[in-house]
């Protein structure tokens, strides 16, 4: 477990301190005197409705507390959600989340499209026509999936460009760059395999061209083509093969790698944009700044090791 600096926990979820009953004879009110609040105001009788309302207000907190007692997740969650980010963090940093959101849209619409789609060479086209023309909102959901795929490819490229131009791929984040590149390739695989599924003229010829481009790789290329087509020609099993890759094999890999990708983002923290200057105390020498880098304050241009050790103090590279 990474150790995060303790964020401020919102008052709403902090349980009140336990109240111990006062010991008789110690403090409290002198004998024979009414308690303080009784003297000034008569005790307020809570109606049954008010009591129920109070209980109701506490119920969600109680339920959360019950779960958290068993999961012990609140420490991790508050650490993750309230983690500090470098000064200068801006809208460009949302491109990764945008890509993730595009993936979620693809996953959700894809699951519902699968309810109507038939992955068979003779029925696929008819089932897509059925989705577009007969099913209520079918064209809308299909459209979201179809245009969303282009959106996801565009967003993942922009996200990669942001990472590259901000120098955010450098030490210690190289592994996250590698995972990101694999995710890019998997996204392209999704776009390629999904393209065939409507099985219209465009899908058919685009897939033939795509498979043949795969085949131009020396030595292994011809066998890769045969693997993709499940034979020497595009045939009956090609479509179901693409369907299985598109909706079972690659999505599983993408979900797993997104998990690893985000774990590393939270663990290592994000970089400051390259135009941010490091904050130095007045009169401090650059060397002193380097020494201070160990506690997460040595953030310079996002390029230098910015105090993002693999574990320990300041483990999320926070430098705000």
């Amino acid at each position, binding site marked *: 477990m990474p150790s995060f600096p303790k964020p401020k926990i919102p008052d709403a979820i902090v349980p009140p301190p336990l109240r111990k009953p006062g010991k008789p004879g110690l403090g409290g009110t002198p004998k024979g005197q009414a308690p303080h609040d009784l003297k000034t105001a008569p005790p307020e009788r809570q109606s049954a409705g008010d009591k129920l309302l109070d209980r109701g207000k506490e119920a969600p907190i109680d339920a959360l507390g019950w779960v958290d007692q068993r999961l012990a997740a609140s420490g991790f969650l508050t650490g993750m959600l309230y983690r500090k980010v470098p000064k200068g963090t801006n809208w460009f940093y949302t491109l990764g989340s945008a890509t993730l959101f595009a993936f979620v849209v693809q996953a959700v619409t894809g699951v519902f499209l699968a309810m109507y789609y038939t992955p068979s*060479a003779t029925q696929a086209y008819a089932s897509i026509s059925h989705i577009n023309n007969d099913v209520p909102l079918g064209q809308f959901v299909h459209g979201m999936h179809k245009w969303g795929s282009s959106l996801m490819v565009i967003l993942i490229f922009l996200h990669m460009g942001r990472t590259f131009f901000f120098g955010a791929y450098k030490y210690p984040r190289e592994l996250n760059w590698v995972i990101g590149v694999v995710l890019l390739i998997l996204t392209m695989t999704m776009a390629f395999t999904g393209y065939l599924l409507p099985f219209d003229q465009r899908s058919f010829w685009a897939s033939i061209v795509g498979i043949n481009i795969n*085949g131009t790789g*020396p030595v292994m290329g011809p066998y890769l083509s*045969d693997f993709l087509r499940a*034979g020497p020609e595009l045939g009956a099993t090609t479509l179901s093969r693409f369907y299985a890759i598109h909706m079972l094999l690659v999505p599983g890999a993408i979900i797993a790698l997104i998990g690893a990708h985000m774990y590393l983002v939270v663990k290592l923290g994000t970089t400051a944009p390259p135009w941010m200057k490091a904050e130095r105390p007045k009169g401090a020498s650059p060397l002193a700044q380097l020494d201070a880098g160990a506690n997460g304050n040595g953030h310079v241009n996002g390029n230098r090791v910015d105090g993002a050790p693999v574990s320990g103090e300041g483990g999320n590279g926070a430098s705000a």
Partner: protein
Amino acid sequence: MADDAKQVNGVHEAPKQERAKPDPPGYFEGESMTRRRVFTVGAQALGGLAGAGIVLPAVGFAIAPIFHRGKERWEAVGPVSDFVEDTYRQVVFTETEGIGDAGKTTAYVRRSSKDLDEEAGKFVAVSNRCAHLGCPVRFVEAAGNFICPCHGGVYDFQGKRIGGPPVRPLDQFQTRVRKGQVELGPRYSVTNQLEPVRARDPGEFTGGIWEYLYPPRPSTFPAP
């Protein structure tokens, strides 16, 4: 560790018979493995075997089509009298069964002539699959050329490349005559000199060293 053990043995000089301290610790005489290590290795080997028992068949199942060659298929495309020497006739026939129209392919068929071919009186069937990336080419009668709509590949009357990105001449189909009908059979590719070789996918060179860089696939039929 070993030194410690020796020292301890040396100091005591064994008035009572003590069992010898294992050296290295955990091992007894003649042993090359501790009990713990035997079980660790054994359990991992079993796990590996069980994993391989699941993964290998699944992978084999997925890549099996690479090694499978379908049944040879011949289809009649018209009577012998339909085809002439100086131009092509377009025919459509089924190359892959079970997927309806998507399994059909187009060929351009003519009678072979003394000027162009080794033997006259046979039949030449040129595939319409472009040797660049597999788009469908069309025979343009006025030019006497095959032209690809995708990336501008151009082939001459025999199917040899004369322009654009294709890497070799157009594929051909084996032909034979049965009961007065011309029949088309398996596909094969040709080198730049129109020598038949085993079918290659579009985009793959043929002839010379390319025969090794783009090895023939087991799923295709031998060249005639």
